[in-house]
């Protein structure tokens, strides 16, 4: 793989950029792989990457029914944070965050991780108590957060209206090392690195069936023929239920539409990410200058990548109230993705009733921030049969009443 660098660009510039090689190969599928990953989104590609990097497993195919990174990886609001309440969540999101910090260097692909800091506003006494609780928990989890005063909030984000007027800002949970990254680049960077390790990323290849022998997975049937595998990882987010059904087991998952939108680009006016959960809105400003805004999720099963407009309305209403200056900005584009929600809104990284078949799903509205940690844990689980980072996220936790419930603090999972 030719390394990317300023020098490489200079070299190519002088010869009309003819020397750039493909970021990833587009091979024909082989008949058999050690591991097949279904889904070439961030989580699937990261799983493949860490299988190779951490466990030397490189005879791997990543199958994608559309184009890589084309699902929720390329549709989210790119927030990266790890200020979660429960131990299992804090562990995997903090692992992800710390991997993000050096991912550009590791992949030799600039994913533009921007540790600009995330503010979660506390606008009721209940939220104040909730975030104080989270701050205490984080201090024991090795996650650096602090509960800051309204003055500090104003300092960090001058365009916030502290008065509310409806829900005065009483403080905020501040994670300075949280931030954002360029979502597409994360998928592309992992894809390039996987391809470079000799893995096959096969796009426009839809899995239509899962083959098993004696309760063990033996391969998949696809629109591009049968592909055998020793182990199978299902990492398909919104379509998990559909693929799980092919393998013959059910998931505690429901798929709903989640929306996001951006404004037209303006000059920098917001250097941090702000989440206002009392009024249901969060916003950051992209490097391009767009205000990036996350909307709510539909309350009904939905496989269209369109949501209901009233969620957009509620979010915009909340943000105009929180950031009065945006009222005269314009919405440039709105879109939707299909997210997979579990009973406790926390993910599933788990073995399945089918031997050698593993599943990683249920990230709901918060998957992007977890990609490196999720891939790391899934790879370890698939390679070794267990991973401390996956502990607590078993698919059967619900029958025991063992939830990883983040909604218990004032926080919501975005």
């Amino acid at each position, binding site marked *: 793989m030719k390394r990317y660098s300023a020098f490489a660009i200079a070299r190519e510039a002088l010869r009309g950029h003819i020397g750039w090689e493909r970021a990833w190969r587009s091979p024909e599928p082989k008949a058999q792989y050690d591991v097949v990953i279904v889904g070439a989104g961030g989580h699937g590609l990261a799983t493949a990457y860490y299988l190779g990097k951490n466990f030397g497993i490189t005879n791997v195919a990543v199958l994608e029914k559309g184009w890589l990174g084309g699902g929720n990886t390329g549709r989210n609001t790119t927030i990266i944070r790890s200020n979660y309440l429960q131990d299992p969540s804090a562990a995997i999101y903090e692992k992800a965050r710390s991997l993000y910090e050096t991912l550009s260097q590791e992949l030799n692909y600039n994913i533009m991780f921007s540790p600009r800091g995330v503010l979660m506003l506390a606008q009721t006494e209940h939220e104040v108590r909730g975030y104080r609780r989270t701050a205490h928990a984080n201090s024991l989890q090795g996650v650096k957060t602090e509960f800051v005063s309204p003055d500090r909030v104003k300092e960090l984000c001058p365009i916030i209206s502290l008065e509310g007027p409806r829900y005065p800002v009483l403080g905020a949970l501040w994670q300075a090392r949280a931030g954002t990254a360029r979502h597409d680049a994360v998928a592309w960077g992992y894809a390039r690195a996987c391809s470079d390790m000799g893995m096959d990323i096969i796009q426009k290849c839809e899995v239509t069936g899962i083959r098993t022998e004696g309760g063990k997975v033996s391969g998949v049937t696809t629109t591009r023929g049968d592909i055998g595998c020793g182990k199978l990882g299902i990492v398909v987010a919104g379509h998990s*239920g559909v693929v799980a059904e092919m393998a013959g087991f059910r998931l505690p998952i429901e*798929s709903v539409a989640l929306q996001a939108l951006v404004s037209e680009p303006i000059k920098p006016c917001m250097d941090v990410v702000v989440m206002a959960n009392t009024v249901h809105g969060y916003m950051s400003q992209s490097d391009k200058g767009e205000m990036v805004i996350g909307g709510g999720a539909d*309350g009904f099963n939905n496989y*269209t990548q369109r949501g*209901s407009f009233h969620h957009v309305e509620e979010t915009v209403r909340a943000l105009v109230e929180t950031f009065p200056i945006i009222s005269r900005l314009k919405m440039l584009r709105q879109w939707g993705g299909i997210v997979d929600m579990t009973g406790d809104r926390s993910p599933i990284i788990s073995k399945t009733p089918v031997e050698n078949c593993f599943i990683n799903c249920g990230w709901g509205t918060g998957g992007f921030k977890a990609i490196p940690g999720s891939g790391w844990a899934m790879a370890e689980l698939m390679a070794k049969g267990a991973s401390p980072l996956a502990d607590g996220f078993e698919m059967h936790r619900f029958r025991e009443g063992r939830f990883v419930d983040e909604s218990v603090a004032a926080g919501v999972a975005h």
Partner: protein
Amino acid sequence: MLILRCPNCGIDADETELAPGGEAHLRRVGPEASDDAFEGYLFHRENPRGVHFERWRHAAGCGKWFHAARCTQTLEVFGTYSAQVTDPPQDIRDAITARRPGWRWRDIE
């Protein structure tokens, strides 16, 4: 933005007048139920890409619950019906069959 006709009052209700209630025709299991049965009842929701039966409440309206048969891929509504039934009535099933021959939901066809 869905519109569903509330079978209780006949109003074509805007989605913002309604409250979604999740999967329809769940059978509550009590203290005697097995772990499997209880997990199934509380967490294993149908999540089909296609024909689905679900519950809604006409919250900003007559306040009553009702059932809807809907396609989760096209959002086509095959019909709405009373919440006081344990299975989809025949006319609803027929309406679905007319639009989606060979459809299946749980053990219902």
